[in-house]
């Protein structure tokens, strides 16, 4: 036990109760004593520090902030130094470390929501701006935090139709959602749910690994890493403790597909993660859901408990004789935690600062153990691969980019929503299938891939949306975000908003990103310097930042300069 200082702030009776109750929740007690914590790797796994973030959330949602007394009570129980816990609490946007107003409204003013002059969304209170909340299909949106009433999302469709879920060329990933979604296990079973798990148990680990490798599936989170290679690396490692993680910290501006999947088809993610666990030899899976996705969190939690009571999770998964369990973590509002090693730090109860790679998570991941981390959409594809067989699955899409892809259309598009298209569909086709540009206006520009993506001009609508198609046009599919801007949009303002996004979301660990994103924001907003130093910033952020956030932080500014937007 380190020489820990527990501070002078005294918890209120209510705060003391919250912390005690939080630790008494059945899942907490089991976790503190579970095998995972006892043998789950070196120093970090020996304590219950990984309960820090959920504990901070318990305080935030009950009393509206993390007060000195509340933090002391929590640190006392978890054995975490106060200064470190304060550092963790202040890392996250959604955790308040100052006395809160009665109603705190974090209203999205990011690239999609900024296009619509939104009203007050029917709530009154203290307003602050916010990065994209992933509600772009029905923007405007805000997070509302009230002491005692937790955290909630409010949205209001401004000048657009209700959100669409569509698959013009045939649905695979969106199949169940098309038929009204499946939020109970009975519904899920009735549309063929858990048959992929049956296949996986029947063909065994090597069968599943073979199928995924043959499918050629590549990660849908943005980096396009071959999924089969990742699974194989974790499966092949000799460690007795391994983990699988679903990265559901979807935070790329303009992106909301994973939210739609989790809200309307939560069992699909749970089934896929279970298959991943059984295949690579992990007994424990984690789903890390971005903090703003309150409905996703509730649906996933309820689905996990149903899967438990029906034997699809637990000591003997679906009669396989193998144990598998899932723990859900709620992010605290930090884009960088979508970076896989920052996500690991966040789960472990530390600040979400990326680790140096290598070593990669596949060998040194959660609590130092081999860990498989996949994006939600990537995992849900595994079900389809097992249903159809890899040959049939890769019959759509291109050789290098097999399968379908979910695209998130928002902004000045006639029918915003999530669209499933075969990889390689042209951007023009994707746009026209969403009804084209919203009535009465003309296309000026498209932002492809989110804040870390690039602009596409109306002359480039023939670009094929596959990994190689985008690459050859100097673009990136990124997270699948497609934000449409009509002629009325002041594009330099969009660029300035993206620059502000990166400055707000930089974790602050490395110099190129911490100071570079700040300088880029100042220059693009016209507050200092000239455009002449943007090249130097671009180089140092792209070359020398630790993680993908900093390495991509200048991508849109570069793209805007190439197209003469700024």
């Amino acid at each position, binding site marked *: 036990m*380190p020489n820990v200082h527990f501070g*002078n702030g005294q918890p209120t009776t209510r705060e003391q109760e919250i912390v005690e109750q939080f630790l008494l929740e059945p899942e907490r007690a089991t976790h503190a004593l579970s095998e995972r914590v006892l043998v789950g790797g070196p120093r970090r796994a020996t304590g219950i520090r990984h309960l820090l973030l959920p504990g901070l959330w318990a305080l935030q949602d009950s009393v509206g902030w993390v007060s000195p007394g509340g933090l002391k009570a929590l640190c006392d129980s978890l054995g975490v130094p106060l*200064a470190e816990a304060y550092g963790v609490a202040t890392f996250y946007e959604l955790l308040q470390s100052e006395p809160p107003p009665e109603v705190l409204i974090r209203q999205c003013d990011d690239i999609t929501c900024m296009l619509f002059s939104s009203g007050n969304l029917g709530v009154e209170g203290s307003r602050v701006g916010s990065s994209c909340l992933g509600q772009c299909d029905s923007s405007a949106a805000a997070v509302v935090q009230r002491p005692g009433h937790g955290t909630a999302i409010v949205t209001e469709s401004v000048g657009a139709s209700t959100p669409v879920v569509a698959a013009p060329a045939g649905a695979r990933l969106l199949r169940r959602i098309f038929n009204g979604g499946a939020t109970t296990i009975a519904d899920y079973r009735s549309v063929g749910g858990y048959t992929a798990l049956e296949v996986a148990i029947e063909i065994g680990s090597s069968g599943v690994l073979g199928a995924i490798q043959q499918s050629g599936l590549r990660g849908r989170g943005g980096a396009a890493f071959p999924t089969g290679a990742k699974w194989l690396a974790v499966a092949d490692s000799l460690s007795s403790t391994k983990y699988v993680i679903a990265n559901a910290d979807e935070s790329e501006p303009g992106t909301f597909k994973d939210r739609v999947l989790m809200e309307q088809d939560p069992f699909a993610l749970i089934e896929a993660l279970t298959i991943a666990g059984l295949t690579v030899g992990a007994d424990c899976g984690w789903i890390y859901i971005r903090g703003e996705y309150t409905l996703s969190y509730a649906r996933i939690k309820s689905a996990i408990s149903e899967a438990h009571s029906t034997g699809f999770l637990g000591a003997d998964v679906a009669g396989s004789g193998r144990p598998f369990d899932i723990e859900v973590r709620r992010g605290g509002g930090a884009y960088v935690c979508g970076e896989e090693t920052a996500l690991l730090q966040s789960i472990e109860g530390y600040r979400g600062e990326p680790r140096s790679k290598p070593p990669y998570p596949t060998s040194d991941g959660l609590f130092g153990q081999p860990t498989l981390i996949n994006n939600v959409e990537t995992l849900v594809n595994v079900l389809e691969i097992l249903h159809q067989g890899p040959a049939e699955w890769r019959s759509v899409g291109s050789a290098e980019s097999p399968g379908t892809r979910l695209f998130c259309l928002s902004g000045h598009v006639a029918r915003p929503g999530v669209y499933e298209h075969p990889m390689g569909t042209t951007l023009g086709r994707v746009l026209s299938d969403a009804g084209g540009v919203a009535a009465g206006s003309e296309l000026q520009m498209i932002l492809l891939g989110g804040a870390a993506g690039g602009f596409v001009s109306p002359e480039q609508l023939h670009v094929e949306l596959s990994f190689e198609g985008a690459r050859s046009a100097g673009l990136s599919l990124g997270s699948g975000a497609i934000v449409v801007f009509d002629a009325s949009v002041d594009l330099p303002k969009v660029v300035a908003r993206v620059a502000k996004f990166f400055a707000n979301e930089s974790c602050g660990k490395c110099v190129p990103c911490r*100071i570079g994103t700040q300088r880029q924001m100042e220059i693009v907003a016209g507050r*200092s310097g000239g455009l002449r130093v943007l090249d130097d910033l671009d*180089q140092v952020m792209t070359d020398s930042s*630790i993680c993908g956030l900093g390495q991509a932080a200048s991508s849109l500014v570069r793209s805007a300069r190439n197209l003469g937007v700024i």
Partner: protein
Amino acid sequence: MIDGIEVDAKAGATIRSAAETVGIEIPTLCWARNLNPANACRLCVVEVEGTRPLVASCSRTVEDQMVITTNSARVRENRRSVLELLASAVELDWAESELVAHFVEYEARSDHFDGTKLEEASKIHDDLFAREYSRCVLCYRCVDACGDQAQHTFAIAIAGRGFESRVSTEFDVRLPDSACVYCGNCIAVCPTGALTPLTEFVMRTESTWVQERQVVTHTVCAFCGVGCNLELHVQDDNIVKVTSPSDHDISLGNLCIKGRFGWQHLD
């Protein structure tokens, strides 16, 4: 292979240390001999064949057949930008001489990037420490020294995010109200003068701190039997600061409050 020289490195060695064995010096800022690499400043970046971004040589371990370039034009441009970014945000006029030398070596201009500076009032809450976070480069050294790499006191951590990140106690409480035990091991590792003993701080602000007039005398601390080595910095016959050699195998640069601050009884 580092800069064309075949290097036979130990498994687990970092690129920086492997380069050092053949006399290639790579500039560092957040790295310190007595701490684990924090991998934060990115001044030590080098090119590794087959890797698109540059890699931090302080923390990346060597691999068989790795081809490394430590001083290409691209590497030098990136190092220069890192230095220029730092100079645009923080005051570096009290920084250690190595950092000043890097500015010369890489032809870095402190006015290249213009913008908001880190402005923070000095924090002086007692007779021993002065903290000036307007000089802080967030190298993580003080946090690591206070935490599990030396002192295990955990009085300070990084709080906030991005450009607003600061080294802080919980809720920014004053140092005497925090877990601080005044060992001063944070001061010992600070490379920029953001943390100084109050004696040094006062002399520097009064412009009476003259490094050239100082003599360093080595001795052994007499307070207990551990045997920590002391370096007494003496200017005009007065002790102005006490440090401990970071490469000494007993103290590794660390001291306690008595060794570092309890010299008033000496002649």
